[in-house]
């Protein structure tokens, strides 16, 4: 057991806070010497009023943009999980399917998701989840119309590969001892798949999901810089830079960091729970 595990919760938090505090201090010094850079307090002021319309920016409020970015990621990443996990399980289990899929996957994997955005816009245009509904109302206008399919498609692309590759890896590396034990016990293929292969591969699948989520966040911020939207943290970063409202740039970056931290912690907690056996078997 490492020394870190013996520490109490407050001291852990304190340790984790050291680096951000130092960074804040350096930032304050930097801002006081160079007036273009917003001071931490200016950024804090923006973060404390997340529901105000940003002045000089053609943008919805910060909280709204956060929500839109989160929704885009949730849909794109959710689609990636829902496609990559079943396909990965299948490819990991059935060798001819793996042989069909692998070369294409290896070819497609290194392509940066953002490179697909122009293609995605070509395919989906500026259609959004809102285009699926006839009726126009304020709610739709504010949220659904902002969920462009092109952006969701590139998030899907970014999230898919780490999840797929790790799922295949997880299935292939389920100990043959367990599979043989199950075979000798004479249980059905279905049961072997659901109760041996799936739980055996789960820790690896969750690792893939964590990686995929990180990539999804990188992708969405970059994708939001492209035209066709009026909301999103990436959009605020791009437009605030154009009109030199840098406190909004910084506020958005901090928001991304915080959301990333929360979501990654959440997935980590889940993987610690379901993968407890693997940690203990080490």
């Amino acid at each position, binding site marked *: 057991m490492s020394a870190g595990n013996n520490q109490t919760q407050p001291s852990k938090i304190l340790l984790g806070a050291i680096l951000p505090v130092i960074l804040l201090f350096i930032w304050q010094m930097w801002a006081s010497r160079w007036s273009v850079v917003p001071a931490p307090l200016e950024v804090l002021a923006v973060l404390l009023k997340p529901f105000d319309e940003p002045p000089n920016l053609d943008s919805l409020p910060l909280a709204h943009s956060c929500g839109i970015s989160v929704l885009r990621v949730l849909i794109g990443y959710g689609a990636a999980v829902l496609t990559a996990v079943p396909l990965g399980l299948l490819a990991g289990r059935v060798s001819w399917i793996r042989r069909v899929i692998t070369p294409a996957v290896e070819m497609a994997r290194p392509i940066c998701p953002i490179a697909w955005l122009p293609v995605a816009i070509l395919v989906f245009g500026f259609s959004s989840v809102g285009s699926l509904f006839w009726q126009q109302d304020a709610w739709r206008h504010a949220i659904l119309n902002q969920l462009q399919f092109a952006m969701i498609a590139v998030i899907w692309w970014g999230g898919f590969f780490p999840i797929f590759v790790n799922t295949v890896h997880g299935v292939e590396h389920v100990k043959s*001892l*367990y599979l*043989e*034990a*199950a*075979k*000798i*016990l*004479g*249980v*059905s293929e279905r*049961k072997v798949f659901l*109760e*041996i292969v799936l*739980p*055996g591969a*789960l820790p690896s699948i969750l690792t893939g999901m964590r990686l995929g989520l990180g990539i999804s966040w990188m992708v969405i911020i970059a994708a939001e810089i492209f035209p066709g939207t009026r909301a999103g943290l990436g959009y605020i970063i791009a437009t605030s830079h154009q009109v030199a409202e840098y406190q909004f740039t910084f506020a958005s970056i901090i928001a991304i960091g915080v959301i990333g931290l929360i979501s990654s912690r959440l997935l980590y907690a889940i993987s610690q729970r379901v993968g*407890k*056996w*693997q940690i*203990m*078997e080490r």
Partner: protein
Amino acid sequence: MIRVLNVSKSFHGGDARRVEALSDVSMEVARGEFLSVVGPTGCGKTTLLRIVSGLETPDEGSIEIAAQGSSNRPSVGFMFQQHALFPWMTVEKNVLFALSAVDRDRRGAHERCRECLRMVGLTDSARSFPYELSGGMQRRAALARTVASRPEVVLMDEPFSALDIATARDLYDEVLEMHERFHMTIIFVTHNIEEAVFLASRVIVMATSPGRIVGEVSVDLPEPRDRLSDPFVDKMLQVREYFEKGTVG
């Protein structure tokens, strides 16, 4: 009950040559017999067991297992060298998983599971995960899972080689008790001569390169056996003689 006829099996070695794991091995095991197979590492005893279990197919020769009931093939239980318990399931779930193949009735399965765990003394650990158990308890749980579905044939591949002597000896008693109670046919593979003689009514000795049978000793000693008695030591010496002959030859 089990007839192994002229079985040969070879594997690819590391350097493109073939390793003959088993060469022309024949043996018979009677119903309800407790047979030990001893031999040094690499004599093919594990391969033999895997072939009997159906996990491996022989290159040549055949295996016959006569069923007692109406089904063609009697159920076979296999206890691996490592514990092979599914680490994401509790002990109870592991045993129920084994029972699910034979027992459609859920309540009946739970009852049998409880009985199995009681037999190996793990009633209080039913809800524990394998990693929460000691090595000895893991073996007990594995034993419970292996015999839960009451297989007619139980194959054991050095199941207690990783345990300390005291724990292993406790488990010998469990195995002997189960053999007595369920009239299972057991093939017990080990490299430990004392273990082989203590448990079995017959000991087959194997030798390496190629893996083959070099001798057979019948152990007609009354139970419980006394490891320090002259007849016991005598049997051990007989087995060792074959063992050494095989190693030298």
